[in-house]
């Protein structure tokens, strides 16, 4: 696979995401991604510095991302993230991104972007 050296800031602008927490941490360089709405699945399978694509938006995603040292969480379907979750993300140094797309579209676009597959 192509080596990835794009940081979160580039990714946010390229995929049309919105950063809702952790703006100052967007220089992180993600290493792949994992898609799951099951927290134990992410605990077991995701690797450090990965992006995590999920439709879960409650507070527990922050602890998972922090413990696993994930690069960022992408919450899909434009789901609202409550203020206490955003606060918790800021405290824990977790980057929260919001995608208006579904998990499928977000993951598809991200895959093409990270691995430099030209779909145009």
């Amino acid at each position, binding site marked *: 696979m192509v080596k990835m050296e794009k940081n979160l800031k580039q990714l946010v602008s390229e995929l049309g995401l919105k950063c809702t927490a952790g703006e100052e941490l967007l220089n992180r360089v993600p290493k792949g991604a994992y898609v799951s709405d099951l927290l134990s*699945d992410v605990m077991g399978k995701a690797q*450090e510095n990965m992006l995590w694509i999920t439709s879960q938006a409650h507070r527990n995603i922050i602890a998972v991302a922090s413990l696993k040292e994930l690069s960022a969480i992408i919450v899909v379907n434009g789901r609202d993230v409550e203020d206490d979750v955003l606060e918790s993300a800021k405290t824990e140094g977790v980057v929260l991104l919001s995608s208006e797309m579904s998990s499928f579209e977000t993951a598809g676009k991200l895959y093409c972007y990270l691995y430099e597959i030209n779909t145009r």
Partner: protein
Amino acid sequence: MKMQYFIQGGDFSAGGRASTEVKSIIKQFNISPDKIRRIAIALYEAEMNVVAHAFKGKMDVDLRPEYIRVVFLDEGPGIEDIDKAMEEGFSTASDEVRQMGFGAGMGLPNIKKNCDEMLLSSIPGKGTRLEIKVIF
């Protein structure tokens, strides 16, 4: 070094607090990042099991130069069939808990995979005791 944390059953908003704290503490010692990650996974899963299933519980951490041993003792429904509970995919979590993305039946298998020794015992109707050890 010993630490003790109280875990409130059903309080998902505080879920992961104890394991997150322990992780930040052990990070200050000369422990390999891989061991730290394994400990964090095992502790988080165990903590969330108490939150999801028990009324209340406590987590006792014993950190030594050679290993970390953590004991979770809870008051709750206990586990009827421990072998069954250890199977991947088996869970007795409520629908509400599952909707939050818990209860996938991966918690106990994840704990087992990420520690060196695991002792699980339970008295149905009373509670559960889980002991986890990771050797450095």
